[in-house]
């Protein structure tokens, strides 16, 4: 076969066509439903738009930073922001720590590994909405089984959980950890497989106990996995929506509202598309900044060997 000269340029042309034919469905979807929306939402974030009278682009007015100023003054937004931060800084470290300890135990120190792996994973694949419905009944303030149990062991006024101003957010956090734990364990168990066994053997010869082995070998060896989970879980917790929408609708009051719920509420309950877009971009910038910060910090505690 002669692949030089004219022939090879026709092959090259052919490769171009084939490449784009294979890419066509994804590319067209990307342009219409991803690239365009990103640009459009950026425009919306800086505009005022009376949406109520139907979709009419000429009713759109450029208003500069007004939407951003608007959300900053909005009490709902500041509560959402505060709650999202509390949610993130509690679910992520707690979930990851419990997950790591359980993964190490399941990996080495127990019988029936598969049973534990599967049962702890069930909440993760179960529908958030259906699980939320179950939790809200189990934690029903007046006759749910949990409070019945608490009363039976002598606690007079058990918390009202999701209906309690003080307890609602911690309950949502607990639900979320319950849901994510199986995934964290799973990822850690995959990470633990990569830790060479001879490291532990060497430590044993030096007389290291199990606890010491955990801190000296396991913890640093799985630090890349910890880093991965930290980023994924942190991003996920900033975007949390299903859980809040299904459990509490942001209530009682503003006690469990989060940014993603604020955006949804602004856009589809009050049709304030500009405000919703501004809040969405604020959220994106925060997520981006935190990820970037994490990325730059990783040298300090993540060891790639």
């Amino acid at each position, binding site marked *: 076969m002669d692949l030089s000269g004219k022939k090879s340029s026709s092959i090259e042309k052919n490769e171009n066509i084939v490449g784009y034919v294979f890419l066509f469905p994804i590319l067209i*979807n990307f342009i219409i439903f991803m690239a365009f929306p990103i640009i459009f939402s950026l425009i919306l974030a800086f505009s005022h738009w009376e949406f109520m009278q139907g979709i009419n682009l000429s009713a759109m007015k450029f208003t500069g930073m007004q939407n951003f100023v608007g959300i900053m003054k909005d009490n709902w937004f500041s509560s959402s922001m505060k709650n999202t931060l509390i949610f993130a800084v509690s679910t992520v470290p707690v979930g990851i720590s419990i997950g790591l300890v359980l993964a190490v135990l399941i990996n080495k120190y127990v019988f029936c590994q598969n049973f534990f792996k599967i049962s702890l994973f*069930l909440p993760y694949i179960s529908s958030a909405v259906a699980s939320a*419905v179950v939790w809200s009944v189990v934690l029903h303030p007046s006759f749910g089984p949990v409070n019945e149990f608490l009363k039976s062991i002598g606690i007079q006024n058990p918390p009202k959980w999701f209906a309690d101003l003080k307890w609602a957010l911690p309950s949502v956090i607990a639900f979320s950890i319950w849901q994510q*734990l199986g995934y964290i364990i799973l990822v850690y168990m995959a990470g633990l497989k990569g830790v060479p066994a001879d490291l532990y053997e060497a430590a044993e010869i030096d007389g290291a106990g199990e606890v010491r082995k955990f801190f000296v070998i396991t913890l640093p060896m799985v630090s890349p996995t910890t880093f991965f989970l930290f980023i994924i879980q942190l991003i996920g917790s900033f975007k949390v929506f299903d859980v809040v929408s299904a459990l509490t609708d942001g209530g009682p009051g503003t006690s469990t509202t989060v940014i993603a719920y604020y955006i949804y509420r602004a856009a589809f309950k009050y049709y304030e598309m500009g405000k*919703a877009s501004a809040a969405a971009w604020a*959220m994106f910038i925060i997520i981006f900044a935190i990820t970037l910060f994490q990325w730059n910090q990783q040298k300090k505690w993540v060891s790639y060997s």
Partner: protein
Amino acid sequence: MKTGSVRNNIVKIVLTGMLMIVAITTIMPFLWMISASLKVEADVFKFPIEWIPRKFNAVANYREVWMGRYNFVMFYWNTFKITVVATVFQVIFSAMAGYAFAKVQFKFKNIIFPALLAALMVPDQVILVPRFLLARWFGLYDTHAIIIILLSFSVYGMFLMRQYMVTIPEALSESAKIDGANHFRIFTLIILPMSKPIVATLAIIKFVWTWNDYQTPLVFLKSRSLYTIQLGIRQFASESGTFYSLVMAAAVCTIIPLIIIFLAGQKYILEGMAAGAVKG
């Protein structure tokens, strides 16, 4: 040595027992859900909990969920349709794009690929409003079509496919090319069959996410006749709120099919997700 291993086994048994408590507490809400769904309403909150109901009312409860006012058959059918179609599309489109990035040398490949990956960073909330407006403009608001279109596209699936296909030796495609096969034949007859494990992983994960997806139908559907099971159970729970045995039966119907799929495809799901899975 011997005493050491006996001691180790005792430690192991104790830890297994402790972890058993953790595991059972974790699935306790599901056990309670199943038990409550079988009871007559008056017994649901009896304390101490009757895990095995003394009076069974399962048939009536489930009949009410499936054939009563709420028509779970319809919710199931809607969810099933959306999930299967979106999963099939997504697997096909992801495989095609993955093949293009792994095996075809086309222009601007090195610009398009990172551009698509960068899109993974953008949270759904940023594009939600414009997507909603697009749906209205295209006349696709309140249809299953828009949900299928939106869920058929996933950068994550494309990336997964590409990473897998890149590892298939180039020599295989080369020798097929010499035999006169074009890219379409190589894709369908060689690369795709060799990518079966990743196709299975993506298909199952996608099935699970689509089945459980709540936000997309919540934003894009309005008519109750189009509701998916996630919207259905939400509606059911808020409107039949005080009939807890029925609500639990509905929750069982929402959760159990996936648990069955999970137990059947355990290997693929656990491996796929451990391979660095993100929701997508």
